[in-house]
């Protein structure tokens, strides 16, 4: 029973093969290096880095985060070093360690997204691009793509045309029908969809009687949103043929397995990295042990099993 003592963990996301399904969620793992003291970065399925824009962004004024029951709200506002500094300062480190790197990108227009993709096409050591069309904290247009299936389709199509990299589109949960969005980007040529980004939420201080976040609203993440994320993955899995990356409140191997059973070919660990910087490694180990214990030789066997 060799397969069971060491089950196969490698998964495919369309053209992209990964050694295992445990990825990090953009914006919760810095540029990867921040977690070097805590996890073997090259041992992860892939590192998805903080959302990158064409030019550096300063982000929103503080306060930017607030804790909520079993979750947190963030309104970072996509502070990032910009694509040039990312390619020159951040990427080489990850490439040299042998990490697979997925670059999460954000623009204010179709053109910006395309220029970002073109820049990353040339960069060495990028495994895939993840289009963030769903960040609720940038007012200038990014959000519109994620809430409108026609715009999402157009954006996917346009970036698809210029991309030589596998293209993942990350969906927003703040919509009436996420299946519709997923189908739109599938038709637009996405190789995979990742979901969910954060739910829009807010907090108010009873002391100051004002919103806690300077940006008023923020994105809700963490265990609180897991049931919603899982449902959306399950729902989308019934409607598209491209692979799904499950995201939302994953902090333990059990959470990860739930998403895989719901239909996710891979998962991303987000807020849990803050709570336990070793979370990704623990989840990976837990999935392996689960498969062994259940006598399952290949993680691919259980993708979507709860739907059958």
């Amino acid at each position, binding site marked *: 029973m060799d397969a069971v003592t060491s089950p196969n963990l490698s998964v495919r996301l369309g053209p992209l093969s990964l050694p295992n399904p445990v990825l990090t969620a953009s914006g919760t793992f*810095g540029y990867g290096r921040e977690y070097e003291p805590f996890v073997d970065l090259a041992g992860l399925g892939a590192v998805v880095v903080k959302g990158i824009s064409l030019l*550096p962004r300063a982000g929103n004024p503080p*306060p*930017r985060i607030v804790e909520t029951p079993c979750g947190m709200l963030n309104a970072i506002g996509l*502070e990032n070093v910009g694509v040039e500094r990312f390619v020159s300062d951040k990427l080489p480190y990850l490439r040299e360690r042998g990490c697979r790197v997925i670059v999460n990108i954000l623009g204010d227009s179709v053109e910006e997204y395309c220029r970002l993709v073109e820049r990353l096409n040339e960069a060495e050591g990028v495994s895939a691009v993840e289009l963030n069309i769903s960040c609720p904290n940038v007012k200038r247009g990014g959000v519109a793509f994620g809430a409108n299936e026609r715009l999402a389709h157009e954006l996917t199509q346009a970036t698809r045309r210029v991309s030589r990299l596998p293209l993942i589109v990350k969906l927003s949960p703040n919509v009436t029908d996420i299946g519709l969005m997923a189908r739109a980007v599938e038709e637009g040529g996405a190789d995979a969809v990742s979901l969910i980004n954060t739910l829009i939420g807010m907090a108010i201080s009873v002391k100051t009687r004002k919103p806690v976040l300077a940006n008023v609203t923020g994105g809700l993440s963490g265990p609180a949103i897991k049931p919603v994320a899982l449902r959306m993955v399950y729902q989308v899995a019934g409607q598209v043929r491209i692979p799904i990356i499950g995201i939302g409140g994953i902090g333990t191997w059990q959470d990860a397995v739930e998403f895989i059973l719901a239909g996710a070919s891979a998962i991303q660990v987000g807020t849990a990295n*803050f709570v336990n*910087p070793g979370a990704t490694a623990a989840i990976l180990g837990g999935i392996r042990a689960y498969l062994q214990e259940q006598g399952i030789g290949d993680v691919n066997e259980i993708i979507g099993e709860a739907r059958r």
Partner: protein
Amino acid sequence: MQQLDAPITRREQLAPDLVRLTLLAPAIAAGARPGQFLTIKSGPGHDPLLRRPFSIHRVVADGSLQVLFKVLGPGTRSLARLKVGESVNLVGPLGNYFQRFPAMCLVGGGLGIAPLLFLAQEIRDQAPETRIELLLGARNRQELAPLAADFADLGLTPRLATDDGSWGHHGLVTDLIPQALGAERDWRIGCCGPYPMMRAVAALCQERGWGCQVSLETMMACGIKACLGCAVAPSPRRETGGRYLHVCQDGPVFNSEDLAWTP
């Protein structure tokens, strides 16, 4: 920087809402510098979710370190219930640390006094020739007494201030500075306490030309510059290209002139 489970080797209830834990964590203690902090997962569940940041209060020779904290909300309440022998998950040491100077005035307010003990300890151990002035303030004697107690072991005699006059100067700890430091320009201040106090100290220092380091607190999710949640605005005079500073890595200790102080 490490993540580890540290057993609690001692638990002291210094006042009804003030607890000091001694944690055996040689791997973290070894590299720790005054001003740095730890993040602690306060309990098993998801509520509260986030780790809690605490300054390193003291490092003990056997590889232990101490945190001193006030019981405020769910996280500290849960930490306060822990017993000797139980373990907590630590990440640290995090952030930067206080720079040492030949003449240092340490100004602490309330729980901000916690990290100053470590700083005073380091100065005594590694630069005993340093001139030290120690100014400590709190709301009242009851609050101040346990915080001020351990400095005597280092041979330091603090000047004290309480808001209600129950111990030392009746007023703010800031009031003590001019008298303690006079007109000398060599003094460098290391300050930790409530924001308004640090702002006042920073303003005074600027006026007198004293360099001033302050230790800030903000909400933190990660403590390791991954979330970018702990942003503070830099002084408009500082060249950052519009970028924010991040307390968990650029701080928690800042030169007061590098910050944009908010009213």
